[in-house]
């Protein structure tokens, strides 16, 4: 792997680390499997790209992207909480609707940002080579956001959100308005994912209507890799674990695609991802079964 592609891998790894943190918030903290992210990642990219092209300051555009994602998350929460639509289905509905909305936002299926100013522009004059600059910038932003999320989950509000997912009845008995926490959690999660989309569009120079496909699986893969590496109850370690998980996942994929003797091409990516996530989910289950069988054998001897 060349240095250039290694840096590119790190950059994408950090960006999807943000997605992983968002996915962790819904899947693990709130116990709300949310597929909206496939749409909100693209929404973030589309909003940022469209706004930047129309002359808006990249930082304001990025912030708008974050807000747009938050709104998308709240729509999913609303469908689920107000109308009792199953969470998975509610999120699929929002995701499907977002596909059209994203096309409308961009006005065409693909927007190029190569010649436009981005959040990186103010730092271009520092003299750091572009490929390093991107990684450093994205890495700093993502780690800072990760630290903020970890801190948030340890605040009174964040802890109430965790209780909402872990034991809603207990949460309610302690005066926590669970619906409000679910709205807030989905908004935060999809806001982060949209932010990741906005960063992706600006560092890679384009937004595309299909770029969000599979975001959820990649995010989930990173969460699972992080969880299996760091077995901890500390929010800080778990959240940073999501980011590290994303980096490792990206590196593993890059290595697999670079190993010529295996013969993978980039179009095999989704299959590889699905197999990896599948394995990560299957192995702990098999290990439990083996252990149980071993224990049972030990008893009868």
């Amino acid at each position: 792997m060349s240095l250039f592609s290694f840096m590119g891998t790190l950059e994408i790894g950090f960006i999807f680390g943000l997605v992983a943190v968002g996915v962790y918030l819904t899947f693990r903290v709130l116990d709300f499997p949310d597929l909206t992210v496939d749409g909100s990642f693209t929404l973030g990219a589309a909003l940022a790209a469209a706004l930047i092209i129309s002359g808006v300051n990249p930082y304001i555009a990025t912030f708008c992207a974050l807000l747009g994602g938050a709104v998308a998350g709240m729509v999913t929460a609303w469908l689920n909480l107000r109308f009792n639509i199953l969470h998975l289905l509610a999120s699929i509905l929002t995701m499907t609707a977002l596909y059209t909305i994203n096309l409308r936002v961009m006005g065409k299926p693909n927007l190029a940002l190569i010649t436009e100013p981005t959040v990186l522009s103010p730092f271009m004059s520092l003299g750091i080579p572009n490929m390093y600059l991107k990684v450093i910038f994205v890495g700093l932003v993502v780690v800072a956001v990760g630290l903020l999320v970890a801190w948030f989950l340890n605040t009174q509000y964040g802890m109430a959100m965790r209780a909402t997912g872990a034991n809603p009845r207990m949460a309610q008995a302690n005066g926590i308005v669970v619906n409000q926490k679910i709205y807030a959690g989905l908004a935060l999660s999809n806001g982060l994912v949209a932010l990741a989309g906005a960063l992706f569009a600006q560092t890679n120079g384009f937004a595309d209507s299909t770029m969000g496909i599979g975001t959820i699986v990649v995010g989930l893969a990173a969460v699972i890799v992080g969880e299996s590496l760091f077995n901890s109850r500390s929010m800080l370690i778990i959240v940073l674990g999501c980011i590290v998980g994303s980096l490792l996942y990206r590196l593993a994929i890059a290595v697999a695609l670079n190993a010529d003797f295996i013969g993978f091409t980039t179009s095999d990516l989704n299959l590889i991802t699905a197999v990896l996530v599948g394995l990560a989910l299957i192995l702990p289950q098999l290990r439990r079964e083996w252990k149980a069988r071993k224990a049972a054998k030990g008893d009868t001897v």
Partner: protein
Amino acid sequence: MIRCKQVKVTFNPGLATEKKALQGVDLTIPQGEFVTVIGSNGAGKSTLLNTIAGDIRCSSGQLCFDDRDVTALSAAARTGDVARVFQDPLAGTCGEMTIEENMALAYGRGKRRGLTLALNEPLRQLFREQLARLNLGLENRLNTQMGLLSGGQRQSVSLLMSALQPSKILLLDEHTAALDPKTAALVMDITDQIVAEKQLTVLMVTHSMRQALDYGTRTIMMHEGQVAFDLSGEERSQYGVKDLLNLFAKIRPDGDELDDDKLLLGA
């Protein structure tokens, strides 16, 4: 003080599965009274507790705490006044969170939850002091995951959690039913301590006739969604488990009295 005026609760109204769980409960419980609630399965004991807590809304009637009408308030909005401990030890705590995190959650009951850290050293000190009362050694295990504790330990911590914030009303829904006799006795002991200390108004549902008479200052029996009898003071102190069973037989004259094994075994 709790006041129920003609409180009625009907589940699935208008459907074939319609169930009139409470059929006009009139009950006034003065501040500081400890009421034990007995009755057979389906008599409406738990429904009464859940209605007071706000988990179940009154279909009609009025519910007041002191002189404040709370009929329309949500469960969460009532938690400033009401603390509760569930029958299932798993229900009252978050298994995935640590002891100190669970206690911090309970510490926030009835307060605004903002963006300040939920735990700090003075709070941990308070939690340690409270846990030390249990004599279970939990004061040194603040960072232990709740899910690793036994049912009895979890229930004991739930009880402490219910008393971390001042409240007026404590609702106990068979909170010792799932515990072994020794742990149950310990939990009842702490219950008594906390109630006396905080001068709480208590409603305790129990299946044990013995417990119903031994604890508290007043005993009511629910039957078919209504208060069938109400014992307190001198009269109550003369009652034994047998008298209670006789009384119970009297209000169920259709011959199927005392078919409730749990009720008998509990006696």
